[in-house]
């Protein structure tokens, strides 16, 4: 599975308890998808799964609004 698929699976199945299937372009921070506790779990998952430390100042709307954005952020980090 590529990064986007891994993130899709985690967010849809774990964070959302399979209530909703998210796509790479969905606005995760919009009204209903993920709450602030969910963001913390998502960051912890990213750190663990992709073996990286995400500094506080990187946990921003630009980097975490969509699955694509997280993927782009991870790619930029591994350069």
């Amino acid at each position, binding site marked *: 599975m590529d990064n986007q698929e891994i993130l899709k699976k985690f967010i849809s199945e774990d964070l959302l308890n399979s209530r909703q299937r998210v796509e790479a372009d969905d606005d995760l*921070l*919009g009204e209903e998808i993920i*709450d*602030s506790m*969910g963001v913390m779990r998502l960051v912890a998952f990213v750190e663990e799964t992709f073996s990286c430390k995400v*500094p*506080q*100042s*990187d946990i921003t*709307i630009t980097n975490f609004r969509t699955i694509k954005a997280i993927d782009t952020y991870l790619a930029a980090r591994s350069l």
Partner: protein
Amino acid sequence: MIYLLSQILDRSASRFPDHDAFRCEGVGLTYAELLQRANGLAQWLVAHGVERGDRVGIYLNKSLESAIAVYGIWKAGGAYVPLDPNAPLARTAYAINHCEIRCLITYKGRRSRILDLLQASPTLSCIVGLPDSFELDQSVTRSVTRSVTRCDWTNLPLSDQAPNVRLMEQDLAYIMYTSGSTGTPKGIMHTHRSGLNYAQMAADTYKLTHKDRLGNHSPLHFDMSTLDYFSGPLVGATTVIIPSAYTKLPASLSQLVQDERMTIWYSVPFALIQLLLRGAIEENGEGEKEKRDLSSLRWVLFGGEPYPAKYMYGLMEKLPQARFSNVYGPAEINQCSYYHVPPLADGEPMPDQVAPIGKIWANAEEIVVDDDDRPVSVGEIGELLVRTPTMMQGYWRQPALNERCFYRTEIANQTAVFYRTGDLVQEIDGNYHFVGRKDRQVKIRGYRIELDEIEAALVAHEQVEEAAAYSVPSEVGSVRVEAAVILKSEVTLAKEDLMAFIADRLPSYAMPQQLEIVSVFPRTGTGKIDRRLLQKRAVDSYRVAISEAYSVQ
């Protein structure tokens, strides 16, 4: 002199026409523009049947439109009813039907739910903020055949003139729905008088001026928003509306505080704890590249739930220029006291929580009573009853509840009406301290949750015999709700199905984090469910789960 909340806007628009009244996502709306747009909306509302005292729903996310809606509704003579755009449909429809909302103000992002709302709410016949291109008659199952008047935001007129509507300070200004213990929400009714009194008292207490920039953290359906929407505009200040995405990402939130040079902050402690722990406000040496500058903040106000002291003093240390105050008051009375927190003296031990709620405002009075409504002596614990000009009229169409929630007595040869807060307080060294609740209400991130309401939602399922909901303290200074049910004999029900059932009835913040299906409940001597024991067991197992989670790392 002004006596209506709508006159706040008239006055500030004449004093500070070019000053931003509200800002959102980097876009500003000046007082002159807000006045023109609010007048235009009011003209349209009146032309389409809104009359004095009519309830008008606001079904918007955090946006500049919400400010136009609030002031536009007032100028039309109506009362605004803020509806949580994320609440389950049935809950929103309940509020619309209960206070007979005919006109709803929304935006196109909510259009998919408008059809469902129109079907669930037969009184609804007028929608502002829906594009003309949106089909109301979409399919056989989702068609709305009655006539619905509508107008998109872009087609609303601008006007220098408000409609000619006569209003008094006793007229209804807004209704806020909040969790009710019987399983249905109750609508808190505020008049122009109670709202304006609050706006003035708060502006005076926190010394607000037109130079202030208030960060609006609370959504409109949450009572803390009234400081940002009423008191800020009263002095010609700028209110910066914080979109919900920012409130979930503390590092973006702190960036916004810096970029918008916010001076006043008012939120539940949860948001401030997040800002301290994850807001990138210090260099921690772990790859932090940037550090936010929050030196513009001059006053940090918090309230709604207890603030663990280590986080409050932690933030105070990072923001030495800011004053910190604990603000107290249920939505029924807006606010009635404050406590300015002094820095810890040298060697002073840190308490667990910032418990003092301070002194009652000069223009209010209080009695602290025991279970038989007899005043307690100073230093004894009792229920706080408050009488204040910022108090609600009562709950919309709840005569029995209105009988119970007020306490009447004679003071200075007059009948004095006090609101029963349900909060237990104790006076220590001249300040009241919050010590708990008289009933089973809990707060989660500032939201009021009635455990009875959660139980009512569970028992509403036809296969559930009995239910118990209880709160469990969690590690971030908030609580989580857990619940257990007993099913009727010889039925099976999957936990997931029951969770889905209550998700249609409860707001997301009230959903239990843990739900157990059990065969027996522990009982007290009188046969009642022993909720205290259930709570104790949950607290113990949650502690074990937390310590295991930490030991794995």
